[in-house]
């Protein structure tokens, strides 16, 4: 029987949540017995090869590409999980949400104390994904089934959640595994 497939991605995140997944240590060997990875930085598959049982999303949506990837995940995954505070509430990238976008650009490319940009140009190549007006948590863009908070979530949190879902058990985390920091 084919193993269930798991996909992961980092949207506006720092890869800390993926690091936490690697932090399950030798249990990673058990994990690859249980599942095959599909689209994920772990195997560097760029596109989905088929239907996935679980999609893990790190990071929120700060640009149009994040939104496209997130929608792609929703379309391909039976269960979608927001992993970490960035995916759940925008996290550190959302600190820009109380500052107008124009001011962010000006500070980043023109007026910041370490900026050297004599031409005064703000990057606008069509290759660059368009920034959204603010950073959105994933569940404000698509339906998300579960949230694993933390910055990043503990490795045990990720492990217990995956094991529960892959065994069709209800996802109930003990008190000590629900943490926001």
């Amino acid at each position, binding site marked *: 029987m084919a193993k269930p497939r798991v996909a992961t991605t980092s949207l506006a995140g720092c890869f800390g949540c993926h690091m936490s997944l690697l932090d399950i240590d030798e249990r990673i060997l058990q994990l690859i017995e249980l599942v095959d990875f599909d689209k994920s930085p772990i195997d560097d598959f760029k596109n989905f090869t088929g239907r996935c049982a679980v999609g893990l999303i790190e990071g929120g949506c700060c640009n149009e590409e994040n939104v496209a990837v997130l929608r792609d995940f929703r379309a391909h995954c039976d269960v979608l999980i*927001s992993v970490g*505070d960035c995916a*759940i*509430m*925008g*996290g*550190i990238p*959302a*600190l820009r*949400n*109380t500052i107008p976008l124009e001011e962010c650009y000006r500070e980043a490319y023109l007026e910041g104390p370490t900026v050297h940009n004599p031409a005064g140009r703000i990057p606008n190549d069509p290759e660059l994904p368009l920034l959204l007006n*603010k950073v959105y*948590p994933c*569940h*404000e863009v698509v339906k*998300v089934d*579960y*949230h*694993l*908070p933390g*910055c990043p979530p503990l490795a045990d949190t990720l492990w217990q959640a995956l094991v529960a879902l892959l065994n069709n058990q209800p996802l109930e*985390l003990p*008190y*000590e595994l*629900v*943490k*926001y*920091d």
Partner: protein
Amino acid sequence: MSQKIELTIDGREISAVPGQTILSAAEEAGVYIPRLCHLKGLTPHGSCRICTVLVNGRPQSACTQPVAPGMLVENDTPKVNGLRRNLLDMLFVEGNHFCMFCEKSGNCELQALAYRFGITAPKYPYMFPQRTLDASHPDILIERNRCILCGRCVRASQELDGKHAFDFIGRGAHKRLHVNAEARLADTDAAVEDRAVAACPVGSLLRKRVGYALPVGRRAYDHQPIGSEISAAAPQG
């Protein structure tokens, strides 16, 4: 001599004295009623409504409602806890609570209540309000992004410190914590040892240069849900 008043909380008979609130009577009987704006020793405020219980079927704030004979109080039930969850969700989205870099994380009562209720994400859209910070005082910081307007600092300053360092101004979504000086906290008589500073349940009023004094794993709510000490003191049998 004061007479005893008998009432029932979640099917358990408890006795109280006249004039006592439901919250304090419950606490004496070892029943924890979640609370946020209430702090023992301060006049009840009744503003956060986290302590909401159903009294004979009607919602009441337990920290302000006096006991009466024969009351049937529902506290730890799915319905009441659902109401509290919604209130907590609202407190999170109405402020800017970035727990990942908050010094109060692990010792924060708002966060601890969310942990207690198993909240993994609020159900309402985040508002990301524009708030200000006052770092003018040499020893104390006001981080309004995290202020939940509980008024504990306001009351503690007045009632315990004999000062009037803090107050609220504005209404509704524009209500905010202010100081009793023209502009800045530094211009008030607030001092770092004031009870008002320690009264803040969240990371809004902070002592400077203390930071992350307790390592992860040793903070107040790392292992036991908030309120555990109250229910642990319940009489056995």
